[in-house]
């Protein structure tokens, strides 16, 4: 069916060059004001793809994507390709043991849309699609490497972790740390910094929240020891030890003492709003000298305390029991009186040690869940020795590989994206899990929806208005997040679209303005071609990053035939595609 777009290339002319640095997610592709029929988008798109930062290593006239060698040498102990094959064998055995059959293979371009959304957080642009579609054979490993090498990869996963951390914030002012945290994460991912280093940096961090994203996790919990260690445990170990805060855990082995021993790594830390009104920020500080014991109910923890006290449940007013810092996983501990620096450095070291099984498994479980739509456990952040995973061998294999590759997130994402199960046609989130026969269809996160709108409507994000608001900046992207945002740790199998969300896509001035703009896609298509198929193809490839099925095409052709004014009809089509359920999902 892609041949139709091929038709559009028949009258190809030699395209002019585009400056390489002009390319961003944001829509430049295809925003040149003219359409492929006139411009010859085949070569044109090819240059666009290669003009992306990743493409600089390749000659511009190099056409065959498939033959390009992988640009990242597999120096690691276990290669992503080998591990993916090992995962495939384990899953194949499991399926045949339970008499299940894998779902059909997804067509190449579906897989491409999926991997773009998962790795760089946006669908491919029409030009990128065209390049991939016209190459004789798709080298998947190569394409994943290109995407991982693009800075949009770090930005996408930085946003994911920003949400994972800040959806659990216990106060609004913490949002001052949200963007710095996202940017810190983005840089770490793009540099492929070891996940162990990232976790350690966030645990030992101190400083200004508006400048140093490493303090984000502490700031989100106002530096309160119980809440901060709960989040460290949940996010980095997948263990919800906070349930033991008040009583021994009902379904886990952790005791109340163990929870408060963990909190005892953090008593000396404080997270304090900056008193200077000209600079609204929060400072994370630690100290080792204490003159007096501060009020335990101090709301914003202006100062820390020398030691952590476990409250007496029978007498909440009593000072409680002084706790030694002891890490519940390996039972290593420190004496009372240990400095803050040594406490937090020890926690970071023990938590990220390769003999702590939960650190690697928590990361694997989370990334697997993001790509496959369902995790090995019932939740991405509720694992641990008292939970039974699906396919424990697959989880172990990936965790071992993650350790052997120095906790490389790029390795992990690439490995999972190369598995056979990831390449299958997806099933609906509500489908009952029986085995890894297919990935699940995943509702997009708010940033992914925004980037999809950017491509569909050819929005220049930097030209949109923004204004300061509270501890952050209000932009159309953040406004969308108010409506479409969710905590990415929540199970997405229960996600449902809300009425205000559908109202936004149907009626918001943002969508309407771009759909009906004189410079909009519909207006320009109406101006520049009479060919209904090209018009339909363009609208589809911008809005949904694919071409229409035959049924869809005939429905649209019929619509174009019924509405007198072609531009109006095309605007209707554009609007309708943005208002399909498909727009909100990664298939």
């Amino acid at each position: 069916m892609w041949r139709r777009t091929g038709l559009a290339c028949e009258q190809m002319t030699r395209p002019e060059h585009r400056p390489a640095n002009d390319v961003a997610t944001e829509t430049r592709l295809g925003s040149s004001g003219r359409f492929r029929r006139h411009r010859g988008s085949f070569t044109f798109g090819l240059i666009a793809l290669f003009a992306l930062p990743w493409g600089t290593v390749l000659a511009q006239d190099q056409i065959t994507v498939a033959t390009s060698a992988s640009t990242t040498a597999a120096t690691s102990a276990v290669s992503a390709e080998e591990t993916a094959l090992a995962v495939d064998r384990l899953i194949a055995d499991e399926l045949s043991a339970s008499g299940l059959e894998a779902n059909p293979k997804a067509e190449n371009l579906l897989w491409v849309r999926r991997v773009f959304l998962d790795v760089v957080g946006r669908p491919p642009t029409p030009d990128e699609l065209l390049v991939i579609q016209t190459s004789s054979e798709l080298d998947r490993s190569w394409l994943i490497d290109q995407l991982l090498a693009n800075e949009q990869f770090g930005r996408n996963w930085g946003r994911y972790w920003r949400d994972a951390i800040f959806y659990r914030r216990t106060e609004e002012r913490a949002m001052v740390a949200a963007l710095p945290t996202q940017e810190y994460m983005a840089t770490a991912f793009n540099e492929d910094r070891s996940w162990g280093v990232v976790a350690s940096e966030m645990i030992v961090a101190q400083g200004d929240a508006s400048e140093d994203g490493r303090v984000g996790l502490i700031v989100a919990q106002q530096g309160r020891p119980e809440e901060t260690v709960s989040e460290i445990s949940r996010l980095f170990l997948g263990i919800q030890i906070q349930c033991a805060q008040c009583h021994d855990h009902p379904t886990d082995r952790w005791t109340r003492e163990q929870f408060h021993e963990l909190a005892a790594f953090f008593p000396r830390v404080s997270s304090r709003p900056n008193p200077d009104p000209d600079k609204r920020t929060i400072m994370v500080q630690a100290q080792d000298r204490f003159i007096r014991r501060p009020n335990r109910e101090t709301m914003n923890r202006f100062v820390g305390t020398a030691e952590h006290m476990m409250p007496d449940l029978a007498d909440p007013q009593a000072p409680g029991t002084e706790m030694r810092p002891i890490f519940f996983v390996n039972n290593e501990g420190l004496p009372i009186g240990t400095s803050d620096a040594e406490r937090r450095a020890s926690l970071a070291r023990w938590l990220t040690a390769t003999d702590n099984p939960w650190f690697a498994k928590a990361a694997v479980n989370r990334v697997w869940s993001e790509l496959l739509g369902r995790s090995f456990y019932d939740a991405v952040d509720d694992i641990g020795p008292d939970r039974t995973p699906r396919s424990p061998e697959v989880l172990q294999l990936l965790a071992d590989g993650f350790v052997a590759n120095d906790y490389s997130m790029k390795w992990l994402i690439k490995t999972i994206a190369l598995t056979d199960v990831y390449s299958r046609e997806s099933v609906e989130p509500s489908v009952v899990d029986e085995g890894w026969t297919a990935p699940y269809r995943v509702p997009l996160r708010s940033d992914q929806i925004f980037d999809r709108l950017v491509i569909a409507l050819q929005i220049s994000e930097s030209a949109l208005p923004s204004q300061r608001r509270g501890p952050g900046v209000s932009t159309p992207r953040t406004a969308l997040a108010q409506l479409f945002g969710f905590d990415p740790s929540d199970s997405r199998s229960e996600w449902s679209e809300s009425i205000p969300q559908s109202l936004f896509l149907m009626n918001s001035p943002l969508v309407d303005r771009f759909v009906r703009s004189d410079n909009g896609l519909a207006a320009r298509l109406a101006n520049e071609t009479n060919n209904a198929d090209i018009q339909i193809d363009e609208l589809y490839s911008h809005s949904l990053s694919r071409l229409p099925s035959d049924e869809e095409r005939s429905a649209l052709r019929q619509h174009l035939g019924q509405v007198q004014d072609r531009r109006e009809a095309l605007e209707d089509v554009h609007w309708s595609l943005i208002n399909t359920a498909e727009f909100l999902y990664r298939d």
Partner: protein
Amino acid sequence: MSEQTVWTSDLNLTRRGWRRRDMLRVLAGSALGASLPWQTELAAQAGSLRQQGKSCILLWMQGGPSQLETFDPKQDHANGGETRSIATNVSGIRISENLPQVAQSMDKIALLRSMTGKEGSHPRASYQMHTGYIPTASVRYPTLGSNVVYHLGDMEADLPAFVRIGQGNRGESGGGYLGVKYDPLVVADPSRPPENTTPATDERRFRRRLNLVRRLEANGAYEQARADHQDLLSRSSTMMLSPQMATFDLEREPQRDRESYGEGAFAQGCLMARRLVEQGVTFVEVNLNGWDTHDDNFSRCRDLCGQMDQPFARLVNDLEERGLLESTLVLCLGEFGRTPRINPRSGRDHFPRAFSAAIAGCGVRGGQVIGATTADGNEIADRPIQIPDFFRTVFTTLGVDPDHENMSGIGRPIPLVTDGEVITELFG
């Protein structure tokens, strides 16, 4: 599975969603069908059907209203400052002179003067006074309106079951672990229609576009998602095109009635709340922001009370005149009170230890005061009301089982209210 309680059987009677839905199906054929001549009549019937259910209006005083300048004045103590008290239409009950109209409706309103909490920061206390729980990283608790609507709301009605009017309070106040379905529809400015509810094109073209989406989604993979999405589009567009959307249009209100609420956004919000409840909306929250009076407390409170007095009093009376007060619970409170001690800037600071709330309707016996503070206002003198007591009372009054447990995201059962006792005197 929670037990079948006395409340559930009540709920079956009050949640008439299915009845109404069946009626619409039969008569209208399709929710997306062309406008029908008797649709208006239908909507009116639907509204009257839903009226049988219980509703709640929360007048939210964002910032922490001073109890001393509202419901618990201390004229005879230095801490009372310049605020005088006045008699009400209930002998023995005196409130601040800032609220003359509320005073004349005191027989319909009960005062709780011994509310007590521990949270002294706006976001944490607002969260607690909306959810009944203090914020924690592990669970996102639903806000009061979402919890009430989850049990009482008709989610198939044209109008949203939960509407929040006015800006200010945002944060985490939504459906929480119940899901976005129970988030409020936000009306930022009551003088305009709610955001994104007006079609960007004329209605004919809007329907044409919807039909196109329906055709595109008629076939293909992901059957469940297509069906759910079509259902959602149908509900959203039904709401947009519903004659009941006129409920949001205050211009439709007779001028005299409109003026009876007074002027200002809060007054408009209260009027809109009454109009919505009348049409069967289950929960309406109306925000009045600005109560954080760290300086210039007395004149600022006079002004804020001026914005609140007439609309609050009128709302209670209007509901009563329309026979809605017995099924509508009206709450008026903020996240905490303010320090009895007056600071050097003539202000009052945050004070969760002893503050007031007003409550009316839905079987609450008006004209009574529950609890008391000491003469200086610094302590609870009688009958402390903890936050869980308050929430347990609200749910019980609305006929929602406060011990009902929901499953959080990680499968932990969480009751609507943990601990607490119903304030039984309210109904005596």
